[in-house]
């Protein structure tokens, strides 16, 4: 068995691993990346990209269905061609995978196809689908093995009936009645998309809010929009029983609310678990939590020197762009810098309207007992939003009352995922709310709402009624 030595070996070629490999190569390291599946990981193959490809068709369909609102008449039958939509999706996935492969080639990154498993620290056996295993050794190892969707133990396992997002982004046909278990980001995106494709969607969420990890006002606003579209949401509800009946064509469920409902398909979107069980972490001495997450220092290093863990596998923030950002910092640290990871990570939810957030939520700020002021601005007050007939949503800014520092920004509205970039940059640079308010924002844009809500948080808003003034007599 041949043994090849590298300066850096990356396990996994998702958005964390492939970026880490490119960064390592850019910095002059001899780099290998181990990937058993397609390049691009969950993001490219089962997540961000395929779902956005489907969503773009769903959103257009939604617009065409409502074209009359814009004074546009559409003749004939409005419909869609699912196979055309999935072909477009598959095409861009191939393009992007090819893109990563050529980036690897351009920087001379060695791609080892197969499953990586530690033999000991710094030594990994790569087992390809076909052919002989190969052993590699490396001075530094970056674990970027990502995560997989959670399945619920005891539930039917037929992936055609009870699916996760892995299957759902590659559905070849659509159900008529879909149950989505979990009202988080994935659940809400699919609910929105599937409703536009004419699927009767029911969302069941255990917690009292949609998008429970984000600021609660966002979930509440999205809930109102979903209700208006006819998406049924059962909050604070559990699926108590689930069985496939009628010869495997119908899923019968019993909810904790007592409702007994039948569906053609079920999408389980209750979260993701780290993909670390098969890595042989024990052999390397790398510690993991009971759930399989690999704890890391602020420098993204595990308990074993020279072994780093980035992205979903470390459980710090399970988002593609977090993994990429981790990847760059971990490589820099591996190659001799000492740089903690501190950048704020934005969240983006691709419903329509979109939801985006960065920094502390109101609830988190409260829990920390911070003296905060909250600024809000309804997107519907903006000229651009009115003109474009996209008045739903708001921006909410959290300000530290003593330091004036921006603590968090939360948005729901058209283009929110683009607008949040501005707030993220300001937060990263530790801007004060005065900095935000003094920045000039182009008119007419949706991002003006960021400035307006910042002014509101400073009691300086011009386009809102004056803030409530509470008067009290003292010293009597």
């Amino acid at each position, binding site marked *: 068995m041949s043994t090849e030595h590298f300066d850096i070996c990356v396990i996994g070629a998702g958005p964390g691993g492939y970026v880490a490999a490119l960064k390592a190569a850019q910095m002059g390291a001899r780099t290998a990346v181990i990937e058993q599946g397609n390049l691009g990981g969950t993001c490219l193959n089962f997540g961000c990209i395929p779902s956005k490809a489907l969503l773009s068709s769903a959103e257009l369909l939604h617009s065409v269905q409502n074209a009359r609102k814009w004074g546009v008449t559409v003749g004939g039958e409005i419909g869609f061609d699912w196979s055309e939509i999935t072909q477009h999706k598959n095409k861009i996935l191939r393009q992007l995978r090819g893109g990563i492969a050529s980036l690897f080639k351009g920087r001379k990154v060695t791609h080892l196809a197969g499953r990586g498993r530690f033999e000991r620290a710094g030594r990994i056996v790569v087992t390809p689908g076909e052919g002989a295993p190969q052993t590699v050794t490396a001075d530094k190892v970056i674990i970027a093995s990502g995560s997989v969707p959670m399945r619920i133990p005891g539930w039917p396992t037929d992936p055609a009936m009870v699916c996760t997002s892995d299957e759902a982004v590659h559905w070849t046909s659509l159900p008529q009645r879909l149950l989505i278990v979990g009202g988080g980001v994935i659940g809400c995106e699919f609910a929105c998309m599937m409703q536009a494709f004419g699927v009767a969607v029911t969302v069941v969420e255990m917690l009292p809010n949609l998008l429970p990890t984000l600021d609660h006002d966002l979930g509440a606003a999205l809930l109102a929009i979903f209700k208006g579209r006819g998406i049924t949401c059962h909050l604070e509800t559990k699926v108590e029983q689930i069985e496939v009946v009628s010869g495997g064509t119908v899923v019968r469920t019993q909810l904790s609310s007592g409702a007994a409902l039948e569906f053609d398909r079920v999408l389980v979107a209750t979260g993701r678990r780290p993909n670390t069980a098969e890595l042989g972490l024990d052999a390397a001495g790398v510690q993991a939590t009971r759930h399989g997450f690999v704890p890391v220092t602020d420098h993204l290093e595990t308990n074993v020197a020279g072994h780093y863990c980035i992205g979903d596998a470390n459980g710090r923030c399970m988002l593609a762009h977090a993994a990429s950002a981790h990847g760059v910092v971990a490589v820099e640290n591996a190659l001799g810098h000492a740089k903690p990871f501190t950048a704020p990570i934005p969240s983006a939810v691709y419903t329509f309207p979109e939801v985006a957030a960065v920094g502390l939520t109101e609830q988190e700020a409260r829990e920390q007992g911070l*003296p905060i002021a909250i600024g*809000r601005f309804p997107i519907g007050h903006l000229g651009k939003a009115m003109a474009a007939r996209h008045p739903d949503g708001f921006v909410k800014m959290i300000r530290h009352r003593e330091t004036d520092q921006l603590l968090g920004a939360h948005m729901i509205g058209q283009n929110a995922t683009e607008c949040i970039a501005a707030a993220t940059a300001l937060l990263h640079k530790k801007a004060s709310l005065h900095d935000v308010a003094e920045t000039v924002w182009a008119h007419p844009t949706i991002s003006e709402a960021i400035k307006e809500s910042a002014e509101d948080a400073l009691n300086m808003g011009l386009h809102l009624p*004056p803030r409530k*003034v*509470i008067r009290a*007599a*003292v010293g*009597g």
Partner: protein
Amino acid sequence: MRSITLPPLAGGAAAATVVRWLKQPGQGFSAGDALVELEIEDALVRLEAAGAGTLTRILAQPRQTVRPGADLAQVTDSGTSQPPSQQPSSPSESHVTRQQPTAVAGTPANVTPILMPQAGNTMEEGTLISWKVAEGDRIQVGQVICEIETDKATIEYESPDEGRLARIVVREQETVPIKEPIALLADNDADADAYLAARGTAAQETTAPGAVAVSSAPGAAAAPSAAAQRMPSGPAPVTAGGRIKASPAARKLAQERGVDLSRMGAGRGPEGRILSSDVATAQVGASVAGDGQSVRRPMSKMRRAIGLNLQKSKQTVPHFYVRLTINAEPLFAYYRARKPQTNCTLNDCVVLAVGRAMAECPSVRSQIHGDEIVEFPHANIGIAVGVDEGLVVPVVRSVETLTLTQLAAETKRVVENARHGKLENIGHGNFTITNLGMFGVEEFGAIINPPESGILALGAMREAVTVEAGAIRTGRVMTMTLSADHRLVDGLLAARFLGRLREILENPSGELS
């Protein structure tokens, strides 16, 4: 030299941050002058001087966050100190942003509704105080057309559109939810009436499909809009099933207001169907005509405030009740003995005893603010006073530090002021005493006045037969019922507190001297 402290904050905010001082050390101020501006999460707080004085030293600097009860500055009194005038949240002027009328399904293009504006995030409904224009007037954009009262302020509403005011939909003193039409702009009245009729129909279709059986008698199919213009004078039409034809919105409103649809006559909807607007305008006449006795009038602000406050209390504060009957002979004797020198009432004696018991019981001198407990150094006791329109609760501060003479005088003063509309020390109370004994009520349980810890309900001092150490005795007794907020006071504490109060009241000459 004394300090001014941050009073408890509206909405239970835990802390406020100083924005700026409007008076500087050395500067004098008179009653009503704004001293300092602070901010909480979603509002500004402006503290105004209750009396005249001079600011000597600022203790809470700008950008400093302080909690209720914290000292903000030191002041010296100058001249006569006036009784503080209480303005918990005097209506500040607010400007209403222009509301774009939201399209109603099937809005005829030639009718523009003017909607109840949402002046502020929390506003849910508004009361039309007065119309400044009349039906038939031409109105301009920005012209003040009416005055609207919100939960916080009275505002002048500027028209968001121009045109001819065809119909006033909401009359003066009526309250409607935000975004409901209050008036219609249209060049001719028929369009406006057709719009109103269509709204009734739309409400039926969207809220309860198939809930109302619409007669399909031949010939009655097409209701011409001209026919819908005026209120037909006949009786309300009835469906084949005997149900009065009315829109679901009208039924709901009628139920809420106790209007009997069967006594209403035909409405302005198609085929005389009763619409919600018919119910709204017909309410007084219909009910008076109904039984000739009942009179309907809007709730006063005070009744509404009492209602909201106590409803919120009963729904959100975990009340529990502890009751105890005391031997009131010693108390009665004490009262009779002290009355000539102190001019006290029996109630004053009990208030003083409660103040002394509270001094030993920190949980009872506390308020609850969100997840935090604010413990006060003193027993600040509210005294429930019945007035014509309802009930007010002026507060006497630091009761435990007063002598009976001082307490009697202070209580008399705050109660007198309360009867004349001046409420003192609102928000500082941590406990309330309510007494229906003078009406012979034996015992009752009261609702806590949030954010206070509890309320003590006093029954009448009455003669009763009691058993003491196996012997039957007659004498005066009094029953007291403590309602306590379980988040602040547990059962054991409540029992100890009442037990201590009994000790004091059964030995007043020893304990209260």
